[in-house]
């Protein structure tokens, strides 16, 4: 499904005001990316994102993101935006880096309401945008528990 969509986007079905984004980006994230970055192009490169293919529990899913950048005074990652397409609030987090950060690499734990695609967009000091995405399947627990 997502491959067909990717082909469609690549074929230039930019009748929809989307960015030139060869990602399986759907609904909510596409709109947010348009809000946050307008028509600026986002290239799927330089960002590495890792989520487990199968999440043990949607309440806590490990997420690792790193961006390939020298992190020098005039060439560094300014910001990293994380989006989860199907979450009720798809804006997961925004991180800011500085030359003194040394390395744009983070590890954290995220909640996912459902199986979905996670997108990370890195904004460089020169304003260029780079991204990566990952997919995770969130399974249902055996016996759904009460909140104490």
């Amino acid at each position, binding site marked *: 499904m997502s491959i067909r969509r990717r082909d469609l986007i690549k074929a230039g079905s930019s009748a929809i005001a989307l960015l030139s984004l060869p990602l399986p980006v759907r609904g909510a994230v596409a709109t947010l990316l348009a809000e946050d970055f307008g028509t600026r192009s986002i290239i799927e490169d330089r960002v590495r994102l890792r989520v487990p293919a199968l999440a043990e529990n949607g309440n*806590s899913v490990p997420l690792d993101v790193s961006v390939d950048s020298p992190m020098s005074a005039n060439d560094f990652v300014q910001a990293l935006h994380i989006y989860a397409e199907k979450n009720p609030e798809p804006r997961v987090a925004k991180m800011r880096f500085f030359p003194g950060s040394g390395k744009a690499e983070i590890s954290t734990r995220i909640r996912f309401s459902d199986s979905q695609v996670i997108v990370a967009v890195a904004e460089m000091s020169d304003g260029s945008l780079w991204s990566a995405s990952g997919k995770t399947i969130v399974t249902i*627990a055996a016996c759904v528990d009460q909140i104490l």
Partner: protein
Amino acid sequence: MKATKWLLLWFLLSLTAEGLAEARSGYTFQSNDVQRMQDDDFRNPGMLWVDKGQQLFYQQAGTSKRACSDCHDDLSGTFLSMPSVNTHIGELVNLTTQIQHCRSEHQGADPISYESETALALTAWIGHQAKGQHFEAVPEALQSALSAGRDYFYRRKGQYNLGCHHCHERYVGHQLRGDLLSQGQSNPYPIYRLEWQTMGSLHRRFRSCDLGVRAQPPELGSEQYIQLELYLRERARTLAIETPGVRR
């Protein structure tokens, strides 16, 4: 005909056979990510409760202005031999109900609920000191309580009419929806459970299971659950304590 008789006998025996061939910690049924979370003291949220528990252990409480540390030193041995009988009150207690008793009777502090942050923190701290060690054997004097606990484990309950053993013995390693069924061992408690998004006790886990089979769960800290805890301790004796464990 003879073969059929043997087959029938084997089948009938298998229905009554109880026990596990080998005890395996729930840790071995978790994903690599959850295992890594447990193994790293800076990733394991349960350690936040251990830290809090350590603080509370040395903090004065109640009208007595006594800290736990004023009377107690290393309680890891106690952790490994709970539940046991508190001879002063003549009741079977576990670590949590004993702490509840200590706080009101010996510290003159406000009563704390079974699943309170204080109880979870203190049991996490004490349990963590016993990490790597093994539960003590259940003494002769507690054999009837052990029996009652065993009965609860094997009794069918609830609308689904299942006993603990159906999931945690017979179908270990099978999938129940997205979950891989473990043996239901008690060696990592209290645990940080991803499903709860917080720290929780063994009795809270019992409650989840009873609700899961649509049975009316006994109260946390009730005699029934303490007896079950005693049986589970016997069952987990070959496993190392992992407190604070992380489970999905």
